[in-house]
C-alpha cells in the first residue's frame, strides 16, 4: 500500500474547475425556455398592503406575468414551514412566500414579476405601485422586549416569541455565597453573512412525470426538498433538489426561503423553468442575519480566579419571523460554560420579534456570542482580581484527566453534554509559546515609549462539532475499477470532495484525484441533512470510511474466492487485490465489480449480493468537541480610534486532521470572519423609519486583505473516540473565539486608560467615544 491520504496535504480535487472558471454555480445554468423573476419588495418596515397596481408592469414587453400571493393558488395561502419547530415557542410567525397583507420588514416580498430576462423583470418590478398603510414599528430590541412595546406583528400580545433557559447546578446559591461577584452588561452584533455568491434558485416542472426539480444555492438540498414537499403537499419522491457549486454559505443558506417556493409554484403554473438570482441589495435586505444581543451577566468567583457560577440574561433580536425556530437562540445558550469546568450555570434568553430581516445562524451560530460572554468573563475576572488572563483560564479549564467530561447540562433530547477528548491547557500553552505571551509586557513598554498603544488579547473555546444524527455515503467500485463516492451532503467551499476522496482512496490505495465524487443532490440515495455546524467532516467523513471499508471487505472476500487464497493473505495495491508479496497473483477491483453485476443467467458467486458497493451511516448520539486558544496583538490609534491588528496566533485541536491544509484554510477564514464581526460589520437600521441603512459594500464593511495580520496556526490532535476516524469539525473554530480575542486585544491596548470593552463591533467612532470618556474624566 502507498502512503496514506488521510492526514496528508492533498491538493483539492475541485480546484481545477474553479481556477479555470469552469465551476457551475446556479446562475451559470441555463435551461431551454427559461424565464427570470424579480421581486417587488416592501419599502416599509411595518405596514398593511392596501392595494397593488400591476397594470403598468404587465404592459412591459417581455413580461409574462406579475403575481401576488392570490395568484399562487390555495396551497400558498399558509405560512411557510418552520425548520426547527419547538414547543417553547409561545408566539409563532413564519412568513408567506409572498406577503398576504401585512409586511413586517423592509425587503419582504410582495409580488413577483416573471419576464424574458432579469432586465425586463426588474424594469417591470419598479413599475408596480404599492399602496401601504404604515404601521408603527419595533426596531430596537430592548424597546421591543418591553411589555408595552409596539408589536412587530399586528395584533400580537407582545414581541416575545419565546423565553428559553439553560441551567444546571445552583447558580443563585453560589452567587449569594461567593466572595466575589462581578456584574457586566454586554452588547453583541454579528451582521450579515455575505457569501460572495448570493442565493439563487432555478425551478423546473415536467408535467408528464409531475416531477419538480430545483437547483438552489443551498447548504441543505435534502432539507429544502423536505420543506418544499411539506409546503406543496407533494411526495418527496416527486421533488429533486440539486445544490450545484455553491459560492459560500456560512449558515443562512441552510434553510429554505420564500423565493424557492415562489420559483417552484411559478414553474408549475407556467410550465416553464424560472430562475431567480439574488442581487447584493437583496442579500442585505432578505438573507437572514445575526443582529443584536444584550446580555446581563453575573459571575461568582473565588479569589484565585476559579469561577463558581455564571448567571446571565439575554435579549435576542430575532427579526420579523422565526424561519429557523429557536435554533440561533439555543446555540447562544447551550455552549455554556465552554471549555471551563463551572459547576453552576443559569442562562435565560428572550427571543424577541422586531421589524428587521429575520435571523439565522451565521458561521458559529450563537456560539461566538456565548464564547464572547465566557471569554470577556474570564478577562473581567482577571481584571477584577488582578490575575493574569491566561492563569484564570487555566484555573478553570476542564482538565485532561477529566475526559470524557460531563458539564452537568443536558440537551433538550435528554442526552447529557459530554466533552469527548482534548487537552485544553496544553493547547493554551502552545499558543502562549508561539505568541511569546510572556514577553509581551516588555514589548508594550517599548511601544509606549514611542507613543504607541499596543495590546494582547486571548481567548479559548470549545465547540460541539459533528452534530448528530447522520450524513450518509455510498461508495462504489465501478466496472472500470474507478472508485465513486456519492454524498447527499454538499460543500460551499470547504473542500468536501477532496476529503471524502482521501478517505475512500485510502481503502483501495488509489489516487484521490481519480476518485469520482458526487455531492449535493437528492437523487443520490444515501440520505443527507445539512452542511452546517462544522458537522460534515465528522459525520459524512466517517460514513465514507465505513462504506469504503465494507466495500473493501467485500472485494477481499470475493478475491479470496477467485485467487483461491485466504483473505488475510491478500492486500490491495493500486486498485488491485493480490496475494501479499506476489503482485502478479492479482485481480483488479474492476474485474471484481464486473463479477458482482454479472449478467442474465450467470449466478452471483455464492453468498454475494449484487454490486461492489455499500451505503453507510455513521450515526453519533452526541457531538464531538473541538477546542483551541487564540492570541492576538493589536494597536490602537487613540486619536482616530483606528485598530491595526499586528499578529494572530491559533493553537487548535480538531482531532485527527484529514487534510491539514484544508483545516488551516477553514480556521484562517473563520478568524477573518471574526475580525469582520469584531471591527467592521454592522447591519444598521434607522430607529425612526425602521429602514436598513447599510445596504451596500460602501456602508457595510467586510474585512479586506490589507486589514488582516499574519495568522499562524498550530495543530494539536486529540482524536475523538466517538468516530472511526477520530475527526472533529473545524469550519467555525476560527470565528468562535476570534471576536472575543480581538476585543480582548483592543481593550488591553487601552488598559492604561481603563477603557472597558463589553461590545462589538468596535468602529473607530465608538472607540473614540469610549476613549474620550476616559480621557476627559482624567
Amino acid at each position, binding site marked *: 500500500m502507498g502512503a496514506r491520504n488521510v492526514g496528508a496535504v492533498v491538493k483539492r480535487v475541485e480546484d481545477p474547475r474553479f481556477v*479555470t472558471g469552469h465551476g*457551475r454555480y446556479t446562475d451559470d445554468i441555463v435551461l431551454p425556455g427559461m424565464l427570470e423573476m424579480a421581486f417587488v419588495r416592501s419599502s416599509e418596515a411595518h405596514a398593511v398592503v392596501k392595494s397593488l397596481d400591476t397594470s403598468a408592469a404587465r404592459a412591459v414587453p417581455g413580461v409574462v406575468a406579475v403575481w401576488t400571493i392570490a395568484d399562487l393558488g390555495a396551497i400558498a395561502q399558509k405560512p411557510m414551514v418552520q425548520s426547527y419547530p419547538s414547543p417553547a415557542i409561545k408566539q409563532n410567525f413564519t412568513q408567506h412566500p409572498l406577503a398576504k397583507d401585512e409586511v413586517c420588514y423592509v425587503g419582504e416580498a410582495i409580488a413577483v414579476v416573471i419576464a424574458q430576462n432579469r432586465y425586463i423583470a426588474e424594469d417591470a418590478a419598479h413599475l408596480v405601485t404599492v399602496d401601504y398603510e404604515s404601521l408603527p414599528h419595533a426596531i430596537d430590541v430592548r424597546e421591543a422586549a418591553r411589555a408595552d412595546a409596539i408589536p412587530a406583528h399586528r395584533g400580537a400580545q407582545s414581541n416575545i416569541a419565546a423565553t428559553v433557559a439553560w441551567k444546571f447546578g445552583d447558580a443563585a446559591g453560589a452567587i449569594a455565597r461567593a466572595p466575589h461577584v462581578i456584574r457586566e452588561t454586554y452588547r453583541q452584533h454579528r451582521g450579515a453573512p455575505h457569501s460572495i455568491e448570493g442565493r439563487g434558485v432555478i425551478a423546473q416542472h415536467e408535467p408528464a412525470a409531475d416531477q419538480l426539480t430545483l437547483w438552489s444555492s443551498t447548504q441543505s438540498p435534502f432539507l429544502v426538498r423536505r420543506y418544499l414537499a411539506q409546503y406543496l403537499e407533494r411526495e418527496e419522491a416527486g421533488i429533486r433538489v440539486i445544490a450545484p457549486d455553491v*459560492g459560500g454559505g456560512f449558515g443562512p443558506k441552510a434553510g429554505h426561503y420564500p423565493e424557492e417556493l415562489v420559483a417552484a409554484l411559478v414553474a408549475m403554473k407556467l410550465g416553464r423553468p424560472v430562475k431567480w438570482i439574488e442581487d447584493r441589495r437583496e442579500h442585505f435586505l432578505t438573507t437572514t442575519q445575526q443582529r443584536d444581543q444584550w446580555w446581563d451577566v453575573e459571575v461568582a468567583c473565588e479569589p484565585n480566579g476559579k469561577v463558581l457560577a455564571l448567571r446571565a440574561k439575554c435579549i435576542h433580536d430575532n427579526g420579523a419571523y422565526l424561519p429557523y425556530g429557536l435554533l440561533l437562540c439555543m446555540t447562544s445558550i447551550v455552549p455554556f460554560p465552554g471549555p471551563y469546568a463551572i459547576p453552576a450555570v443559569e442562562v435565560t434568553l428572550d427571543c424577541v420579534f422586531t421589524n428587521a430581516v429575520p435571523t439565522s445562524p451565521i458561521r458559529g451560530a450563537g456560539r461566538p456570542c456565548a464564547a464572547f460572554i465566557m471569554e470577556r468573563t474570564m478577562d473581567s475576572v482577571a481584571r477584577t482580581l488582578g490575575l493574569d488572563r491566561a492563569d484564570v483560564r487555566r484555573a478553570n479549564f476542564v482538565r485532561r484527566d477529566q475526559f470524557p467530561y460531563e458539564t452537568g447540562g443536558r440537551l433538550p433530547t435528554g442526552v447529557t453534554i459530554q466533552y469527548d477528548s482534548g487537552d485544553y491547557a496544553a493547547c493554551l500553552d502552545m499558543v502562549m509559546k508561539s505568541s511569546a505571551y510572556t514577553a509581551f509586557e516588555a514589548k508594550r513598554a517599548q511601544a509606549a515609549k514611542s507613543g504607541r498603544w499596543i495590546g494582547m488579547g486571548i481567548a479559548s473555546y470549545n465547540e460541539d462539532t459533528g452534530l448528530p444524527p447522520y450524513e450518509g455515503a455510498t461508495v462504489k467500485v465501478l466496472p472500470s475499477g474507478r472508485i465513486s463516492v456519492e454524498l447527499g451532503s454538499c460543500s460551499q*467551499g470547504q473542500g468536501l470532495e477532496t476529503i471524502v476522496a482521501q478517505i475512500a482512496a485510502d481503502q483501495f490505495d488509489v489516487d484521490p484525484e481519480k476518485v469520482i465524487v458526487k455531492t449535493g443532490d437528492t437523487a443520490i440515495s444515501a440520505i443527507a441533512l445539512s452542511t452546517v455546524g462544522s458537522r460534515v467532516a465528522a459525520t459524512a467523513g466517517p460514513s465514507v470510511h465505513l462504506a469504503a471499508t465494507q466495500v473493501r471487505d467485500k472485494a477481499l472476500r470475493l478475491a479470496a474466492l477467485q485467487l483461491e487464497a485466504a483473505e488475510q493473505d491478500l492486500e490491495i495495491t493500486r486498485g488491485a487485490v493480490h496475494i501479499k508479496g506476489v503482485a502478479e497473483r492479482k485481480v483488479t477491483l474492476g474485474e471484481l465489480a464486473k463479477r458482482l453485476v454479472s449478467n442474465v443467467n450467470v449466478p452471483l458467486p455464492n453468498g454475494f449480493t449484487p454490486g461492489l458497493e455499500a451505503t453507510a451511516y455513521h450515526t453519533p448520539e452526541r457531538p464531538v468537541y473541538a477546542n483551541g486558544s487564540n492570541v492576538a496583538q493589536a494597536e490602537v490609534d487613540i486619536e482616530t480610534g483606528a485598530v491595526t491588528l499586528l499578529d494572530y496566533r491559533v493553537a487548535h485541536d480538531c482531532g485527527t486532521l484529514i487534510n491539514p491544509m484544508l483545516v488551516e484554510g477553514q480556521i484562517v*477564514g473563520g478568524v477573518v470572519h471574526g475580525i469582520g464581526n469584531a471591527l467592521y460589520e454592522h447591519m444598521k437600521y434607522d430607529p425612526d423609519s425602521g429602514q436598513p441603512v447599510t445596504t451596500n459594500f460602501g456602508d457595510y464593511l467586510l474585512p479586506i486583505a490589507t486589514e488582516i495580520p499574519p495568522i499562524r496556526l498550530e495543530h494539536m490532535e486529540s482524536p475523538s473516540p466517538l468516530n472511526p476516524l477520530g475527526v472533529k469539525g473545524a469550519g467555525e473554530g476560527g470565528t468562535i473565539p476570534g471576536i472575543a480575542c480581538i476585543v480582548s486585544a483592543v481593550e488591553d491596548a487601552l488598559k492604561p486608560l481603563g477603557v472597558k470593552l463589553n461590545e462589538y463591533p468596535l468602529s473607530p467612532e465608538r472607540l473614540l467615544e469610549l476613549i474620550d470618556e476616559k480621557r476627559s474624566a482624567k
Partner: protein
Amino acid sequence: MSDRRTIEVTVNGVRHTREVETRLTLGDFLRHELGLTGTHIGCEHGVCGACTIHLDGAAARSCILFAVQAHGCEITTVEGLAKSDGTLHAVQQAFRDHHGLQCGFCTPGMQMTITAFLAENSSPSEKEVREAISGNLCRCTGYQGIVAAALDAAQKLRGA
C-alpha cells in the same frame, strides 16, 4: 427601452460581433451572451471585484461597464488564462498549490486582478500584494492563501 448597438470585441482571442442592448453590462454580456460564466457577479456595484476581467490588458470591473463600452477592445476572462493545451497559468497553479480558494466564487476576479498586477509589478512585497487585492472581497479564505499564491506566482513568472 431597447436601444441596441452592434459591437465588436475580441474575447480570449476570439472575435465576436453582436448586437446588444446599450444597457447590457459587460459582465452579463460575457456570461449570458457569450456563455463565459467564469466571470462572476458578486455585488453589481463595483466593490467585490468578482467580475474583474482584463480590458485591453488592464483589470476592469465588468459589472459597472456596459458591453458597448468594450466595443473595439480586447478582453481576457478567466477562461483565457490557461494555455490552450490546458496548462494552468502560474497564478492559477499557485492558487491551487497554496489553497488560495475555497468556494471559488471570488477566484476568477482575484486571479484576473493578480495577473494584471503582476504584469506591472513583477516582484511585489506582501504589502503590495495585499493592496493590489484590497478591492477584491473573499469571504472564505481570509486572504492568506491568496497572498501566498500571488507571491509564489510572481516568483515563478520571474523564472526564479
